[in-house]
Protein backbone atom coordinates (compact mmCIF):
# COMPACT_ATOMS: atom_id res chain seq x y z
CA UNK A 1 0.00 0.00 0.00
CA UNK A 2 1.31 3.40 -0.94
CA UNK A 3 0.13 6.31 1.25
CA UNK A 4 0.21 9.73 -0.39
CA UNK A 5 -1.50 13.09 -0.79
CA UNK A 6 -3.20 14.17 -4.00
CA UNK A 7 -5.56 16.82 -5.35
CA UNK A 8 -5.41 20.59 -5.35
CA UNK A 9 -2.44 22.16 -3.56
CA UNK A 10 -4.61 24.14 -1.15
CA UNK A 11 -6.78 21.21 -0.15
CA UNK A 12 -4.91 17.98 -0.57
CA UNK A 13 -6.56 14.65 0.09
CA UNK A 14 -5.01 11.66 1.80
CA UNK A 15 -5.06 8.51 -0.32
CA UNK A 16 -4.04 4.90 0.23
CA UNK A 17 -3.28 3.19 -3.06
CA UNK A 18 -3.11 -0.57 -3.51
CA UNK A 19 -1.75 -1.69 -6.84
CA UNK A 20 -2.50 -5.17 -8.20
CA UNK A 21 0.52 -7.40 -7.45
CA UNK A 22 0.20 -9.24 -10.72
CA UNK A 23 -0.86 -6.21 -12.73
CA UNK A 24 -4.33 -5.33 -13.89
CA UNK A 25 -6.33 -3.00 -16.07
CA UNK A 26 -9.25 -2.24 -13.77
CA UNK A 27 -9.65 0.35 -11.02
CA UNK A 28 -11.83 1.06 -8.02
CA UNK A 29 -12.34 4.08 -5.78
CA UNK A 30 -13.66 3.39 -2.28
CA UNK A 31 -15.93 5.97 -0.67
CA UNK A 32 -15.98 5.87 3.12
CA UNK A 33 -19.07 6.39 5.24
CA UNK A 34 -19.28 9.50 7.39
CA UNK A 35 -18.36 10.46 10.95
CA UNK A 36 -17.92 7.74 13.53
CA UNK A 37 -18.91 5.21 10.87
CA UNK A 38 -15.76 6.20 8.97
CA UNK A 39 -13.55 5.35 11.95
CA UNK A 40 -15.24 2.01 12.48
CA UNK A 41 -15.25 1.04 8.79
CA UNK A 42 -11.59 1.91 8.21
CA UNK A 43 -10.32 -1.64 8.77
CA UNK A 44 -13.01 -3.13 6.55
CA UNK A 45 -12.11 -0.75 3.73
CA UNK A 46 -8.48 -1.78 4.06
CA UNK A 47 -9.53 -5.43 3.76
CA UNK A 48 -11.72 -4.63 0.74
CA UNK A 49 -8.89 -2.72 -0.92
CA UNK A 50 -6.46 -5.56 -0.43
CA UNK A 51 -8.95 -8.13 -1.68
CA UNK A 52 -9.70 -6.13 -4.81
CA UNK A 53 -6.03 -5.47 -5.55
CA UNK A 54 -5.35 -9.21 -5.22
CA UNK A 55 -8.10 -9.68 -7.81
CA UNK A 56 -6.38 -7.33 -10.25
CA UNK A 57 -7.73 -3.89 -9.35
CA UNK A 58 -5.89 -0.63 -8.81
CA UNK A 59 -7.62 0.57 -5.65
CA UNK A 60 -7.70 4.00 -4.08
CA UNK A 61 -9.39 4.75 -0.76
CA UNK A 62 -9.20 8.30 0.40
CA UNK A 63 -10.34 10.72 3.09
CA UNK A 64 -12.85 13.42 2.15
CA UNK A 65 -11.90 17.05 2.79
CA UNK A 66 -12.06 17.86 6.48
CA UNK A 67 -11.97 14.20 7.49
CA UNK A 68 -9.21 11.74 8.37
CA UNK A 69 -5.76 12.86 7.29
CA UNK A 70 -7.00 15.16 4.51
CA UNK A 71 -6.71 18.92 4.65
CA UNK A 72 -9.42 21.15 6.04
CA UNK A 73 -11.99 21.13 8.80
CA UNK A 74 -15.30 19.36 8.89
CA UNK A 75 -16.96 22.68 9.61
CA UNK A 76 -16.13 23.73 6.04
CA UNK A 77 -17.24 20.48 4.42
CA UNK A 78 -20.26 19.95 2.21
CA UNK A 79 -21.73 17.32 -0.02
CA UNK A 80 -20.68 19.29 -3.10
CA UNK A 81 -17.08 19.42 -1.84
CA UNK A 82 -17.03 15.69 -1.18
CA UNK A 83 -18.42 14.91 -4.62
CA UNK A 84 -15.60 17.02 -6.06
CA UNK A 85 -13.21 14.98 -3.92
CA UNK A 86 -14.55 11.76 -5.45
CA UNK A 87 -14.05 13.21 -8.92
CA UNK A 88 -10.44 13.99 -7.98
CA UNK A 89 -9.98 10.46 -6.65
CA UNK A 90 -11.39 8.96 -9.87
CA UNK A 91 -8.97 11.01 -11.96
CA UNK A 92 -6.08 10.08 -9.67
CA UNK A 93 -6.86 6.38 -9.90
CA UNK A 94 -7.07 6.54 -13.67
CA UNK A 95 -3.66 8.24 -13.71
CA UNK A 96 -2.08 5.78 -11.30
CA UNK A 97 -3.26 2.71 -13.18
CA UNK A 98 -3.33 4.19 -16.67
CA UNK A 99 -6.99 3.25 -16.82
CA UNK A 100 -9.92 4.33 -18.93
CA UNK A 101 -12.62 3.44 -16.42
CA UNK A 102 -13.03 2.78 -12.71
CA UNK A 103 -15.67 1.44 -10.34
CA UNK A 104 -17.02 3.32 -7.35
CA UNK A 105 -17.82 1.56 -4.08
CA UNK A 106 -19.58 3.47 -1.34
CA UNK A 107 -20.84 2.47 2.10
CA UNK A 108 -23.82 4.14 3.84
CA UNK A 109 -23.65 7.90 3.16
CA UNK A 110 -20.57 7.16 1.05
CA UNK A 111 -22.94 5.22 -1.23
CA UNK A 112 -25.06 8.33 -1.78
CA UNK A 113 -21.94 10.38 -2.50
CA UNK A 114 -20.65 7.74 -4.92
CA UNK A 115 -23.97 7.68 -6.77
CA UNK A 116 -24.03 11.47 -7.06
CA UNK A 117 -20.45 11.48 -8.35
CA UNK A 118 -21.09 8.64 -10.81
CA UNK A 119 -24.00 10.36 -12.51
CA UNK A 120 -23.16 11.13 -16.08
CA UNK A 121 -19.51 10.05 -15.86
CA UNK A 122 -18.79 7.67 -18.69
CA UNK A 123 -15.55 6.59 -17.05
CA UNK A 124 -17.38 5.01 -14.09
CA UNK A 125 -18.33 1.56 -15.27
CA UNK A 126 -19.69 0.00 -12.07
CA UNK A 127 -21.19 1.16 -8.83
CA UNK A 128 -21.42 -0.76 -5.56
CA UNK A 129 -23.81 0.54 -2.92
CA UNK A 130 -23.06 -1.15 0.42
CA UNK A 131 -26.02 -0.66 2.76
CA UNK A 132 -26.53 2.78 1.22
CA UNK A 133 -28.30 5.61 2.95
CA UNK A 134 -31.53 6.27 1.07
CA UNK A 135 -33.42 8.20 3.73
CA UNK A 136 -31.28 11.01 5.11
CA UNK A 137 -33.62 11.87 7.96
CA UNK A 138 -33.70 8.29 9.23
CA UNK A 139 -29.96 8.06 8.84
CA UNK A 140 -29.43 11.18 10.94
CA UNK A 141 -31.71 9.79 13.59
CA UNK A 142 -29.80 6.50 13.58
CA UNK A 143 -26.50 8.27 14.30
CA UNK A 144 -28.07 10.23 17.13
CA UNK A 145 -28.73 13.63 15.59
CA UNK A 146 -31.49 15.36 17.58
CA UNK A 147 -34.79 15.75 15.83
CA UNK A 148 -35.41 19.35 14.81
CA UNK A 149 -38.63 21.27 14.75
CA UNK A 150 -40.10 21.88 11.33
CA UNK A 151 -37.95 24.31 9.39
CA UNK A 152 -34.79 23.61 11.40
CA UNK A 153 -33.76 27.21 11.70
CA UNK A 154 -30.33 28.75 12.08
CA UNK A 155 -29.33 26.44 14.91
CA UNK A 156 -29.73 23.22 12.99
CA UNK A 157 -26.07 22.36 13.58
CA UNK A 158 -25.09 19.94 16.34
CA UNK A 159 -22.43 17.54 17.52
CA UNK A 160 -23.07 13.87 16.93
CA UNK A 161 -20.71 11.20 18.24
CA UNK A 162 -17.71 13.51 18.11
CA UNK A 163 -18.61 15.01 14.75
CA UNK A 164 -19.57 18.63 14.26
CA UNK A 165 -22.59 18.49 12.00
CA UNK A 166 -22.98 21.93 10.49
CA UNK A 167 -26.39 23.11 9.28
CA UNK A 168 -25.14 22.85 5.70
CA UNK A 169 -23.90 19.28 6.06
CA UNK A 170 -26.96 18.28 8.02
CA UNK A 171 -29.15 19.69 5.29
CA UNK A 172 -27.16 17.85 2.62
CA UNK A 173 -27.57 14.54 4.40
CA UNK A 174 -31.21 15.16 5.25
CA UNK A 175 -32.02 15.55 1.57
CA UNK A 176 -30.79 12.09 0.64
CA UNK A 177 -33.69 10.05 -0.73
CA UNK A 178 -34.23 7.38 -3.37
CA UNK A 179 -34.06 10.21 -5.89
CA UNK A 180 -30.37 10.63 -4.99
CA UNK A 181 -29.85 7.40 -6.90
CA UNK A 182 -31.16 8.69 -10.18
CA UNK A 183 -30.71 8.38 -13.90
CA UNK A 184 -27.35 7.89 -15.54
CA UNK A 185 -25.87 5.37 -13.14
CA UNK A 186 -23.70 2.53 -14.40
CA UNK A 187 -24.29 -1.16 -13.68
CA UNK A 188 -24.98 -1.30 -9.96
CA UNK A 189 -24.64 -3.82 -7.14
CA UNK A 190 -26.94 -3.13 -4.21
CA UNK A 191 -25.51 -5.00 -1.23
CA UNK A 192 -27.35 -5.28 2.07
CA UNK A 193 -26.04 -6.99 5.19
CA UNK A 194 -28.83 -6.47 7.72
CA UNK A 195 -31.18 -9.08 9.07
CA UNK A 196 -34.11 -8.13 6.85
CA UNK A 197 -33.71 -9.66 3.43
CA UNK A 198 -36.21 -7.29 1.84
CA UNK A 199 -34.71 -3.97 2.99
CA UNK A 200 -33.24 -3.27 -0.46
CA UNK A 201 -36.51 -3.79 -2.30
CA UNK A 202 -37.72 -0.15 -2.38
CA UNK A 203 -34.38 1.18 -3.65
CA UNK A 204 -34.06 -1.69 -6.12
CA UNK A 205 -37.53 -0.94 -7.48
CA UNK A 206 -36.60 2.72 -7.79
CA UNK A 207 -33.33 1.97 -9.60
CA UNK A 208 -35.08 -0.42 -11.95
CA UNK A 209 -37.77 2.18 -12.65
CA UNK A 210 -35.19 4.76 -13.67
CA UNK A 211 -33.43 2.29 -15.93
CA UNK A 212 -30.40 1.30 -13.88
CA UNK A 213 -29.14 -2.26 -14.36
CA UNK A 214 -29.21 -3.36 -10.76
CA UNK A 215 -28.13 -6.57 -9.03
CA UNK A 216 -29.27 -7.10 -5.45
CA UNK A 217 -27.32 -9.24 -3.00
CA UNK A 218 -28.37 -9.83 0.57
CA UNK A 219 -25.55 -11.28 2.66
CA UNK A 220 -26.21 -11.09 6.41
CA UNK A 221 -22.93 -10.00 7.98
CA UNK A 222 -21.37 -7.76 10.62
CA UNK A 223 -22.28 -4.07 10.20
CA UNK A 224 -18.80 -2.72 9.42
CA UNK A 225 -19.76 0.86 10.24
CA UNK A 226 -21.07 0.09 13.70
CA UNK A 227 -18.69 -2.49 15.11
CA UNK A 228 -15.43 -1.92 16.95
CA UNK A 229 -12.83 -4.38 15.82
CA UNK A 230 -10.18 -6.19 17.74
CA UNK A 231 -6.62 -5.91 16.55
CA UNK A 232 -5.55 -7.05 13.14
CA UNK A 233 -8.89 -7.44 11.53
CA UNK A 234 -10.65 -9.77 13.93
CA UNK A 235 -14.33 -9.98 13.10
CA UNK A 236 -14.36 -8.31 9.70
CA UNK A 237 -17.39 -8.69 7.40
CA UNK A 238 -15.56 -11.10 5.13
CA UNK A 239 -18.72 -12.48 3.53
CA UNK A 240 -19.78 -9.02 2.37
CA UNK A 241 -16.29 -8.21 1.08
CA UNK A 242 -16.16 -11.48 -0.82
CA UNK A 243 -19.59 -10.78 -2.31
CA UNK A 244 -18.35 -7.46 -3.68
CA UNK A 245 -15.12 -8.92 -5.03
CA UNK A 246 -17.10 -11.77 -6.59
CA UNK A 247 -19.43 -9.37 -8.39
CA UNK A 248 -16.53 -7.18 -9.49
CA UNK A 249 -14.64 -10.06 -11.02
Amino acid at each position, binding site marked *: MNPFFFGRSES*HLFGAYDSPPAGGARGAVLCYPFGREYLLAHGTFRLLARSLSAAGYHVLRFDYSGTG*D*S*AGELADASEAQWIDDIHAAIDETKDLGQLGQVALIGMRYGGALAALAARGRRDVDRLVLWDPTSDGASYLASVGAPVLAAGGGEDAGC*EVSGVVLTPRLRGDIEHVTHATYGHGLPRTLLLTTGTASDEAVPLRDHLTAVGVACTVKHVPDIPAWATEWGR*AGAGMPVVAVNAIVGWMT
Partner: protein
Amino acid sequence: MDDVNASYREKAVAFGEQRSLVGILTVPAGKHNDRAPHVILLNSGVIHRVGANRLHVRLARALSSVGITTLRFDLSGIGDSERRGAIPSLRESVERDIADAIDHLSTTQGATRFVLMGLCSGAFDAMHAALGENRVVGAVMVDIPGPFQTWRFIVYHLGERLFHFLSWRRPGEKAVFYSRAILSSVRTQPTAAGNGRYVIGGRSRAGRQRMAGQLETLLGGGVRLLVIFTPGVETNYNHRSLFRTTFPRAAAHPGLSFDYFAEADHIFSRDRERSRLVERVLAWMGNEPFGVAHDAGREAPRQPA
Protein backbone atom coordinates in the same frame (compact mmCIF):
# COMPACT_ATOMS: atom_id res chain seq x y z
CA MET B 1 3.16 14.64 -2.93
CA ASP B 2 2.97 16.64 0.28
CA ASP B 3 -0.06 18.37 1.67
CA VAL B 4 0.91 22.02 1.78
CA ASN B 5 -0.85 24.47 4.08
CA ALA B 6 0.06 27.97 5.22
CA SER B 7 1.27 26.80 8.63
CA TYR B 8 2.31 23.22 8.02
CA ARG B 9 3.40 20.64 5.48
CA GLU B 10 2.23 17.06 5.74
CA LYS B 11 3.84 14.05 4.21
CA ALA B 12 2.65 10.45 4.20
CA VAL B 13 5.49 8.18 5.24
CA ALA B 14 6.16 4.45 5.38
CA PHE B 15 8.98 3.32 7.64
CA GLY B 16 10.27 0.52 9.84
CA GLU B 17 10.99 -3.03 8.86
CA GLN B 18 9.96 -3.47 5.25
CA ARG B 19 8.38 -0.01 5.45
CA SER B 20 5.35 -1.62 7.03
CA LEU B 21 4.47 1.23 9.39
CA VAL B 22 2.38 4.07 7.97
CA GLY B 23 2.18 7.58 9.34
CA ILE B 24 1.79 11.26 8.61
CA LEU B 25 4.63 13.65 9.30
CA THR B 26 3.46 17.19 10.05
CA VAL B 27 6.24 19.74 9.71
CA PRO B 28 5.97 23.46 10.48
CA ALA B 29 5.96 25.62 7.38
CA GLY B 30 8.97 27.37 8.87
CA LYS B 31 11.78 25.67 10.72
CA HIS B 32 11.28 23.20 13.58
CA ASN B 33 11.84 24.96 16.89
CA ASP B 34 15.21 23.53 17.95
CA ARG B 35 14.40 23.99 21.62
CA ALA B 36 11.35 21.77 21.34
CA PRO B 37 11.32 17.97 21.14
CA HIS B 38 9.62 16.17 18.28
CA VAL B 39 6.23 14.70 19.17
CA ILE B 40 4.98 11.20 18.39
CA LEU B 41 1.24 10.51 18.65
CA LEU B 42 0.28 6.93 19.50
CA ASN B 43 -2.88 4.99 18.67
CA SER B 44 -5.78 4.95 21.11
CA GLY B 45 -6.93 1.34 21.12
CA VAL B 46 -7.68 0.30 17.55
CA ILE B 47 -8.56 3.79 16.32
CA HIS B 48 -6.19 4.57 13.48
CA ARG B 49 -3.68 7.39 13.57
CA VAL B 50 -6.15 10.28 13.09
CA GLY B 51 -7.13 9.74 16.73
CA ALA B 52 -10.43 9.74 18.51
CA ASN B 53 -12.65 12.23 16.72
CA ARG B 54 -9.61 13.37 14.70
CA LEU B 55 -7.87 14.59 17.85
CA HIS B 56 -4.38 13.72 16.60
CA VAL B 57 -4.85 15.61 13.35
CA ARG B 58 -5.87 18.72 15.25
CA LEU B 59 -3.01 18.31 17.71
CA ALA B 60 -0.42 17.82 14.99
CA ARG B 61 -1.50 20.87 13.04
CA ALA B 62 -1.73 23.03 16.17
CA LEU B 63 1.74 21.96 17.29
CA SER B 64 3.11 22.86 13.87
CA SER B 65 1.83 26.40 14.41
CA VAL B 66 4.29 26.75 17.30
CA GLY B 67 7.15 25.17 15.40
CA ILE B 68 6.87 21.56 16.55
CA THR B 69 7.12 18.59 14.20
CA THR B 70 4.91 15.57 14.86
CA LEU B 71 4.55 12.05 13.58
CA ARG B 72 1.22 10.29 13.97
CA PHE B 73 1.41 6.68 12.90
CA ASP B 74 -0.30 3.33 13.15
CA LEU B 75 1.16 0.60 15.32
CA SER B 76 1.59 -2.77 13.62
CA GLY B 77 -1.76 -4.37 12.84
CA ILE B 78 -3.74 -1.15 13.33
CA GLY B 79 -4.98 1.26 10.66
CA ASP B 80 -2.79 1.08 7.58
CA SER B 81 0.24 -0.60 9.17
CA GLU B 82 0.99 -4.25 8.50
CA ARG B 83 1.12 -6.75 11.29
CA ARG B 84 4.63 -7.74 12.31
CA GLY B 85 5.86 -11.27 11.72
CA ALA B 86 7.10 -13.46 14.52
CA ILE B 87 6.95 -11.16 17.54
CA PRO B 88 6.56 -12.91 20.88
CA SER B 89 4.32 -10.34 22.53
CA LEU B 90 2.13 -7.34 21.88
CA ARG B 91 4.31 -5.29 24.20
CA GLU B 92 7.47 -6.08 22.26
CA SER B 93 5.71 -5.28 18.99
CA VAL B 94 4.59 -1.90 20.34
CA GLU B 95 8.03 -1.10 21.72
CA ARG B 96 9.68 -1.93 18.40
CA ASP B 97 7.14 0.16 16.51
CA ILE B 98 7.76 3.20 18.71
CA ALA B 99 11.52 2.72 18.47
CA ASP B 100 11.16 2.59 14.67
CA ALA B 101 9.18 5.86 14.75
CA ILE B 102 11.89 7.50 16.86
CA ASP B 103 14.57 6.21 14.52
CA HIS B 104 12.63 7.50 11.52
CA LEU B 105 12.40 11.00 12.97
CA SER B 106 16.07 10.87 13.96
CA THR B 107 17.15 9.86 10.50
CA THR B 108 14.89 12.07 8.40
CA GLN B 109 14.44 15.12 10.64
CA GLY B 110 17.61 15.11 12.74
CA ALA B 111 15.46 14.77 15.86
CA THR B 112 17.25 13.96 19.11
CA ARG B 113 14.56 14.40 21.79
CA PHE B 114 11.01 13.14 21.79
CA VAL B 115 7.70 13.55 23.53
CA LEU B 116 5.29 10.61 23.32
CA MET B 117 1.58 11.25 23.60
CA GLY B 118 -1.36 8.92 23.81
CA LEU B 119 -4.87 8.41 25.13
CA CYS B 120 -5.91 5.24 26.98
CA SER B 121 -3.74 2.40 25.61
CA GLY B 122 -1.68 5.11 23.90
CA ALA B 123 -0.91 6.62 27.30
CA PHE B 124 0.09 3.20 28.59
CA ASP B 125 2.34 2.68 25.55
CA ALA B 126 3.87 6.16 25.95
CA MET B 127 4.86 5.47 29.54
CA HIS B 128 6.36 2.06 28.86
CA ALA B 129 8.22 3.19 25.77
CA ALA B 130 9.66 6.12 27.72
CA LEU B 131 10.98 3.69 30.32
CA GLY B 132 12.99 1.88 27.69
CA GLU B 133 14.15 4.79 25.54
CA ASN B 134 16.30 7.58 26.95
CA ARG B 135 15.76 9.83 23.97
CA VAL B 136 12.24 10.40 25.29
CA VAL B 137 12.18 13.59 27.38
CA GLY B 138 8.46 13.91 27.90
CA ALA B 139 5.14 12.10 27.79
CA VAL B 140 1.53 13.22 27.65
CA MET B 141 -0.72 10.54 29.09
CA VAL B 142 -4.48 10.94 28.85
CA ASP B 143 -6.73 8.52 30.76
CA ILE B 144 -3.93 6.06 31.38
CA PRO B 145 -5.33 2.79 32.71
CA GLY B 146 -4.00 2.28 36.22
CA PRO B 147 -4.55 0.84 39.67
CA PHE B 148 -6.94 3.54 40.81
CA GLN B 149 -9.60 1.18 42.17
CA THR B 150 -8.73 1.98 45.78
CA TRP B 151 -11.10 2.33 48.72
CA ARG B 152 -11.44 5.99 47.75
CA PHE B 153 -12.62 4.88 44.32
CA ILE B 154 -15.42 2.87 45.95
CA VAL B 155 -16.31 5.73 48.26
CA TYR B 156 -16.57 8.17 45.36
CA HIS B 157 -18.57 5.67 43.35
CA LEU B 158 -21.04 5.08 46.14
CA GLY B 159 -21.03 8.65 47.41
CA GLU B 160 -22.15 10.00 44.09
CA ARG B 161 -25.17 7.75 44.13
CA LEU B 162 -25.97 7.55 47.81
CA PHE B 163 -28.20 10.57 47.98
CA HIS B 164 -29.61 10.27 44.53
CA PHE B 165 -33.32 9.81 44.96
CA LEU B 166 -33.68 7.47 42.01
CA SER B 167 -31.08 5.17 43.49
CA TRP B 168 -33.45 4.30 46.30
CA ARG B 169 -36.55 3.59 44.26
CA ARG B 170 -35.78 -0.12 44.15
CA PRO B 171 -33.74 -0.81 47.28
CA GLY B 172 -33.49 -4.54 46.67
CA GLU B 173 -31.93 -4.08 43.26
CA LYS B 174 -29.64 -1.39 44.60
CA ALA B 175 -28.41 -3.62 47.40
CA VAL B 176 -27.45 -6.26 44.86
CA PHE B 177 -25.83 -3.65 42.62
CA TYR B 178 -23.68 -2.16 45.39
CA SER B 179 -22.68 -5.58 46.70
CA ARG B 180 -21.47 -6.49 43.26
CA ALA B 181 -19.70 -3.14 42.82
CA ILE B 182 -17.77 -3.56 46.06
CA LEU B 183 -16.87 -7.16 45.26
CA SER B 184 -15.82 -6.14 41.76
CA SER B 185 -13.66 -3.31 43.06
CA VAL B 186 -11.95 -5.66 45.48
CA ARG B 187 -11.39 -8.22 42.76
CA THR B 188 -10.03 -5.70 40.26
CA GLN B 189 -7.48 -4.43 42.77
CA PRO B 190 -4.20 -5.41 41.12
CA THR B 191 -1.55 -7.03 43.21
CA ALA B 192 0.78 -4.62 44.95
CA ALA B 193 3.97 -5.37 43.09
CA GLY B 194 3.24 -7.35 39.98
CA ASN B 195 1.01 -7.10 36.96
CA GLY B 196 -2.69 -7.15 37.62
CA ARG B 197 -4.92 -9.78 36.11
CA TYR B 198 -6.76 -7.14 34.16
CA VAL B 199 -5.66 -5.95 30.79
CA ILE B 200 -6.33 -3.07 28.47
CA GLY B 201 -6.05 -3.90 24.79
CA GLY B 202 -3.79 -6.82 25.60
CA ARG B 203 -1.61 -4.74 27.92
CA SER B 204 -1.24 -5.86 31.54
CA ARG B 205 -2.24 -3.20 34.01
CA ALA B 206 0.51 -2.52 36.53
CA GLY B 207 0.09 -2.79 40.27
CA ARG B 208 0.21 0.30 42.44
CA GLN B 209 3.78 -0.02 43.67
CA ARG B 210 5.08 -0.96 40.28
CA MET B 211 3.41 1.93 38.47
CA ALA B 212 4.55 4.32 41.21
CA GLY B 213 8.10 3.10 40.64
CA GLN B 214 7.75 3.56 36.88
CA LEU B 215 6.50 7.12 37.21
CA GLU B 216 9.22 8.01 39.71
CA THR B 217 11.89 6.44 37.50
CA LEU B 218 10.81 8.61 34.61
CA LEU B 219 10.61 11.77 36.70
CA GLY B 220 13.97 11.01 38.33
CA GLY B 221 15.43 10.60 34.87
CA GLY B 222 14.35 14.09 33.87
CA VAL B 223 11.31 13.08 31.83
CA ARG B 224 8.54 15.69 32.02
CA LEU B 225 5.05 14.25 32.34
CA LEU B 226 1.64 15.72 31.62
CA VAL B 227 -1.04 13.47 33.12
CA ILE B 228 -4.65 14.16 32.22
CA PHE B 229 -7.77 12.33 33.26
CA THR B 230 -11.43 12.54 32.33
CA PRO B 231 -14.37 10.94 34.11
CA GLY B 232 -15.01 9.08 30.86
CA VAL B 233 -14.04 5.59 32.01
CA GLU B 234 -15.76 5.27 35.32
CA THR B 235 -14.29 1.84 35.98
CA ASN B 236 -10.75 3.28 35.74
CA TYR B 237 -10.92 6.75 37.26
CA ASN B 238 -13.82 8.52 38.94
CA HIS B 239 -12.48 11.51 40.89
CA ARG B 240 -10.00 14.33 40.31
CA SER B 241 -7.96 13.44 43.42
CA LEU B 242 -7.34 9.76 42.66
CA PHE B 243 -4.00 10.26 40.94
CA ARG B 244 -2.66 12.38 43.79
CA THR B 245 -3.80 9.93 46.44
CA THR B 246 -2.66 6.86 44.52
CA PHE B 247 0.75 8.24 43.54
CA PRO B 248 1.52 11.01 46.07
CA ARG B 249 5.26 11.17 45.40
CA ALA B 250 4.94 11.37 41.63
CA ALA B 251 2.09 13.87 41.89
CA ALA B 252 4.23 16.16 44.06
CA HIS B 253 7.22 16.03 41.73
CA PRO B 254 7.87 19.34 39.91
CA GLY B 255 8.34 17.47 36.64
CA LEU B 256 4.75 16.25 36.62
CA SER B 257 1.79 18.36 35.57
CA PHE B 258 -1.75 17.15 36.19
CA ASP B 259 -5.12 18.17 34.86
CA TYR B 260 -8.63 16.84 35.14
CA PHE B 261 -11.12 17.51 32.36
CA ALA B 262 -14.33 17.18 34.30
CA GLU B 263 -16.55 17.97 31.32
CA ALA B 264 -14.87 15.65 28.82
CA ASP B 265 -15.65 12.07 27.97
CA HIS B 266 -13.00 9.45 27.26
CA ILE B 267 -12.78 10.11 23.52
CA PHE B 268 -13.23 13.88 23.75
CA SER B 269 -16.44 13.79 21.76
CA ARG B 270 -17.18 17.46 22.29
CA ASP B 271 -15.38 19.91 20.05
CA ARG B 272 -14.90 22.36 22.92
CA GLU B 273 -13.10 19.74 25.02
CA ARG B 274 -10.84 18.79 22.11
CA SER B 275 -9.90 22.44 21.75
CA ARG B 276 -9.20 22.69 25.49
CA LEU B 277 -7.00 19.62 25.37
CA VAL B 278 -5.03 20.96 22.42
CA GLU B 279 -4.52 24.28 24.22
CA ARG B 280 -3.40 22.47 27.38
CA VAL B 281 -0.83 20.41 25.47
CA LEU B 282 0.47 23.46 23.60
CA ALA B 283 0.84 25.40 26.84
CA TRP B 284 2.65 22.50 28.48
CA MET B 285 4.98 22.05 25.51
CA GLY B 286 5.74 25.77 25.61
CA ASN B 287 6.42 25.95 29.33
CA GLU B 288 8.33 22.78 30.10
CA PRO B 289 12.13 23.03 30.31
CA PHE B 290 12.81 19.93 28.25
CA GLY B 291 16.41 19.00 28.71
CA VAL B 292 18.56 16.08 27.80
CA ALA B 293 17.03 13.22 29.72
CA HIS B 294 19.15 11.24 32.11
CA ASP B 295 19.07 7.51 31.78
CA ALA B 296 19.15 6.73 35.48
CA GLY B 297 17.12 3.61 35.98
CA ARG B 298 16.13 3.38 32.35
CA GLU B 299 17.29 0.85 29.86
CA ALA B 300 20.02 1.67 27.36
CA PRO B 301 18.69 3.33 24.21
CA ARG B 302 18.01 1.08 21.31
CA GLN B 303 20.47 1.58 18.48
CA PRO B 304 18.96 2.67 15.18
CA ALA B 305 18.67 -0.19 12.72
